[in-house]
């Protein structure tokens, strides 16, 4: 399981996270919410190792990974669907998916079928360069790419952004399925409240770099959460 | 000062380092030798080395620094003509002396420069005469090949005039120029083959500069051009350039110089031995510009002794008529036009990277600052004997008071 313990994070001189804590367990979806610029993405960057933390500690599966570079974290089963998609623009769809193999032992180096079942468009466009895809297609590719890594911790930063309604529903279904398998912890950043509410087992709400609410889905009162989401 | 300072102005980096570094070492050796002999006028000589980095304006800057900053008494340096042209105003302004050791295109005379390399009449013209002679193969058709800059252009202009005077028509003369550092010679070598297959005995006169020579000769070898069919005589290819080449396929091609390392004289043997001792590498070769520095330096030493001072005007005056034994035999003498009289040697390339002398002038030839084959220049003379001084006049001029 993942536990983030009182981390501080800075960009240059400005502090983006102040003593943020979070935990995520396998088989559960932990949802992080908050307005624009409160530090959600920064928190995820700290978890996957893209931005160093100034203090605090991150543990994953019982090991301290605070100082590990992000490639090593990926090799320990942490995959991310970043905000802004960040697909490799000049690699084909197929090659984009295959970049996920780096963290896998050689016998597992194939694209799982459910990726194509979920996003048939990727199958049609295997030979097209990632950068040529439409925004929503790129988002689907980014999710597919993360799934190729068979992660034990899946970190999703606004995965529904730019995706058509029917596919959003499917993504919700997949996340639910993955949770149901029980071997994966999922951290989801989502602005779209209904989507989050339907999936989340736990909530963390952030404001101005701090956690202002946290608890299980059952404890959450929609009004309270929404209050933190309006300006 | 308690030492006599000698400035050394040779590029140690950049494109010309390849040629000039050796000259810096040669100068250091000569100075060391002189100091071992007790120095000069009871003082030690001190070398001041700077690196003008193959950058022409930097040459001028360094020259000024040597003369005004380090207060050197004489400067030995430069290789390319443009570097000399760049420092020339500085030497004239500050009235200091430069010894310039490399063969060049002539058409210049300065009271502050002693030209110890060959003028065109000491290299190019004898070489072509040799090619036209029976021993040289009796060539009647000439390809003049050069790097596109002033030295080849001038030399070829002089040669063309000379050849025309010898009855060789313009259609039997091919002039081709290449950029500096040209490395792809395929087309030109093919052209040469074609040019030489018109039924007349043909020879190539090369004024290709520095770096471009190695690929040129490699291409000659590769295309199987034999010296006996199409001899190439070069004016800028010496032992140093050949050191970078496997010369087996080039045996028989020629060069014209005033010095070859292979010449067997006691002076030369001693010089080579000293050089090897100094540079600590038996494989290093000597070459013509080194000899020029050797002559120039020794002449300057003699002149200083004679004048009893390093004062520039006194030394200049003492230089005239100064004689130093050539390494190749005979005696070099400094003339009032600041050029030397030297023997001219034609050598064939050997498979060991040396030249074998196949022809030489019977006596020495006096370097001519102003070529007789250029109309504007033919009427000029140079005579720097005080008080009648002038480097480019039709009659000597009087330098007042």
């Amino acid at each position: 399981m993942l536990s983030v313990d009182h981390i501080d994070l800075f960009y240059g001189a400005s502090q983006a996270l102040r003593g943020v804590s979070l935990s995520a367990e396998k088989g559960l979806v932990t949802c992080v919410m908050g307005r624009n610029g409160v530090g959600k993405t920064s928190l995820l960057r700290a978890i996957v190792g893209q931005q160093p933390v100034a203090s605090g500690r991150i543990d994953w599966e019982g090991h301290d990974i605070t100082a590990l570079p992000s490639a090593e974290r990926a090799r320990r089963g942490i995959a991310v669907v970043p905000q802004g998609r960040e697909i490799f623009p000049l690699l084909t769809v197929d090659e984009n998916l295959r970049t996920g193999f780096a963290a896998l032992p050689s016998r597992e180096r194939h694209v799982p079928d459910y990726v194509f079942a979920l996003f048939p468009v990727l199958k049609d466009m295997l030979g097209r360069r990632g950068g040529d895809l439409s925004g929503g297609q790129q988002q689907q590719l980014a999710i597919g790419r993360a799934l190729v890594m068979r992660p034990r911790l899946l970190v999703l930063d606004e995965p529904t952004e730019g995706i058509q309604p029917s596919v959003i529903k499917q993504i919700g279904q997949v996340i639910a399925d993955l949770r149901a398998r029980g071997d994966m912890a999922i951290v989801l950043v989502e602005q779209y409240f209904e989507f989050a509410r339907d999936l989340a087992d736990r909530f963390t709400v952030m404001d101005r770099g701090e956690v202002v609410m946290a608890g299980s889905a059952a404890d959450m009162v929609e009004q309270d959460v929404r209050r933190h989401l309006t300006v | 000062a308690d030492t006599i300072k000698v400035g050394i102005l040779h590029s140690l980096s950049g494109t010309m380092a390849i040629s000039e570094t050796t000259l810096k070492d040669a100068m250091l050796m000569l100075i060391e030798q002189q100091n071992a002999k007790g120095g000069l006028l009871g003082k030690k000589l001190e070398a001041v080395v700077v690196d003008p980095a193959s950058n022409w304006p930097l040459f001028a800057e360094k020259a000024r620094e040597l003369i005004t900053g380090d207060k050197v008494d004489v400067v030995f340096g430069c290789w390319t003509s443009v570097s000399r042209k760049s420092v020339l105003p500085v030497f004239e302004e500050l009235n200091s002396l430069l010894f310039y050791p490399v063969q060049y295109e002539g058409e210049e005379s300065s009271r502050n420069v002693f030209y110890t390399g060959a003028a065109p009449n000491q290299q190019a013209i004898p070489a072509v005469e040799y090619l036209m002679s029976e021993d040289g193969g009796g060539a009647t058709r000439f390809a003049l090949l050069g790097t596109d800059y002033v030295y080849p252009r001038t030399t070829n202009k002089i040669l063309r005039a000379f050849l025309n005077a010898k009855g060789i028509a313009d259609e039997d003369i091919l002039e081709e120029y290449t950029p500096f550092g040209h490395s792809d010679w395929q087309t030109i070598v093919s052209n040469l083959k074609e040019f030489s297959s018109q039924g007349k005995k043909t020879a190539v006169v090369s004024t290709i500069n520095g770096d471009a020579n190695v690929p040129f000769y490699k291409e000659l070898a590769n295309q199987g051009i034999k010296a006996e069919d199409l001899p190439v005589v070069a004016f800028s290819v010496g032992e140093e350039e050949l050191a970078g080449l496997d010369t087996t396929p080039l045996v028989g091609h020629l060069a014209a110089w005033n010095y070859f390392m292979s010449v067997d004289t006691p002076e030369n043997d001693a010089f080579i031995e000293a050089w090897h001792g100094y540079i600590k590498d038996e494989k290093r070769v000597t070459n013509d510009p080194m000899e020029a520095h050797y002559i120039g330096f020794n002449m300057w030493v003699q002149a200083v002794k004679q004048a009893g001072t390093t004062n520039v005007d006194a030394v200049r005056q003492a230089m005239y008529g100064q004689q130093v034994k050539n390494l190749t035999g005979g005696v070099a003498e400094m003339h009032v036009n600041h050029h030397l009289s030297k023997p001219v040697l034609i050598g064939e390339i050997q498979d060991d990277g040396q030249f074998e002398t196949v022809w030489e002038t019977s006596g020495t030839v006096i370097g001519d600052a102003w070529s007789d084959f250029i109309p504007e220049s033919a009427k000029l003379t140079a005579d720097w004997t005080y008080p009648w001084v002038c480097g480019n006049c039709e009659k000597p001029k009087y330098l007042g008071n």
Partner: protein
Amino acid sequence: MIQICQRAIRLLLLLAAILAAGPFSANGARAGAFEDALPVLTGKGFAAVGEAVDALAASGDPRAIPVLEALSDGDLYYRESDKAVFLARKGGEGYLLTDPGTGEAAGTGARGDFQKIKTNNRLRVKIRTALGALGLFSPDPQVRIAAARSLFMDPDPALLPLVDDALSKDDDPGAREALDLARAAILIKAGEASTPADKVAAIRILSQSTSQGARALLGGILLDDGEGSEEVRQAAGKALQQIETRLSRLAFVENVFQGISLGSVLLLAAIGLAITFGVMGVINMAHGEMVMLGAYATYLVQETFRLHAPEALGWSLPIALPFAFLVAGAVGIAMERGVIRFLYGRPLETLLATWGISLVLQQLVRTIFGPTNREVSSPDWMSGTIEVTSGLLFTTNRLWIIAFALIVLFALMAVLRYTAFGLQMRAVTQNRRMANAMGIRSGWVDAFTFGLGSGIAGIAGVALSQIDNVSPNLGQSYIIDSFLVVVFGGVGNLWGTLVGAMSLGIVNKLLEPYSGAVLGKILVLIAVIMFIQKRPKGLFALKGRAVEN
């Protein structure tokens, strides 16, 4: 005139000797003539040596062949004490001697005791003719062909009967063809001695050949005012025209070949840059120095061979390849780890840093190896020319370089396209942060990518050492062209690099005969500038959304 007579007499003597003895036998050679001729070689001046050559040729003695060859190659010496002549090769401290009379080893001698017998170009021509005459009756057809060819190069009218005789006895088709040509050449050169009809027949034979030599002969007829026969002149004029047409067609092919070969040199120099610059986006000003390091690595390998295994020198290049790759690659990796990795995302700063590194590397090499050129020789299998058809010669080393450049390019393409490393390399350079998040160890990938690019530059250096200076400045002379090629082809596209290099090479070589080298180069540069206006992202530009962001 007297000279010609003398020569005729001499050769007739030779002829008589050979004819009397019959071919392929030395028994009949004028007894003692060979022994008599040897001491003449030690006389003073070229004239004496010339006489000796004549005498040796006239001896008809097959032992004269190696002696003349040695003389021509500068391997003939005499002992100063007793003027005994030896064939000598340098070995160990002194010379390894061979006795010319017996052809057997004659021990060694100290260098100081021996004097080399000098030749000059005129003598070499003479020797060639003599060798031609002597070799016409060799049992080896190859030798006979060579002999006939050298007679063709220096036709001597006095040898006509000899050639006729050889023709009547020879049944090797190759040798016969060469002999026919030699005979034709002799007839043409014979002046008054051959009839106009003979000459016209000879011209007809020559007109079939496509060689510069034939052309020179025919040109000679037209230039020769002594040639009175109008018929001969006309025939020669027509034949010359035929040859010229063929030659000019071949010249085009040759130009294209030269263009391709120049293109492959450019390609070789640029491929490494296509990785470090094209793929990684590092403006690598030290690329040329990597090429230079490769060339010096070649030099080191060759030196080692020269010292320890001179007989295997031909192997030095194949061994230098991996060595140069490793040396340049290692330096590249060190550079990447030490400096460049701190500069990703700041491509323009890499220009500054790599420029600094290139200065340091140049000076380092200058300090270690000295500023002067180093000798790297070509192995035998890379020297000489291959005659594709008559009159069309391709130089062997260029063919090798073309093949080599293409092999390197395609191997690299395969690595990029089909290996996991290739995929990771491209992923890392496109989005380093995301690649890391995918579990790709970008530091490792970066280092090896840069190492790969540098290593390839290193092996380019091996090839370039074959045609250019091995000096500290070597790299500088290729860096501009390399960038031009990569950019012209389209950054990040190896096909573009290939096509870019080849088109620059070919255009350059097609222009050069008309415009001269300097103007040709200027025109090519202008053409590139104009071309980029049409295709602002290079020949093989990547298009579409993917590149825009």
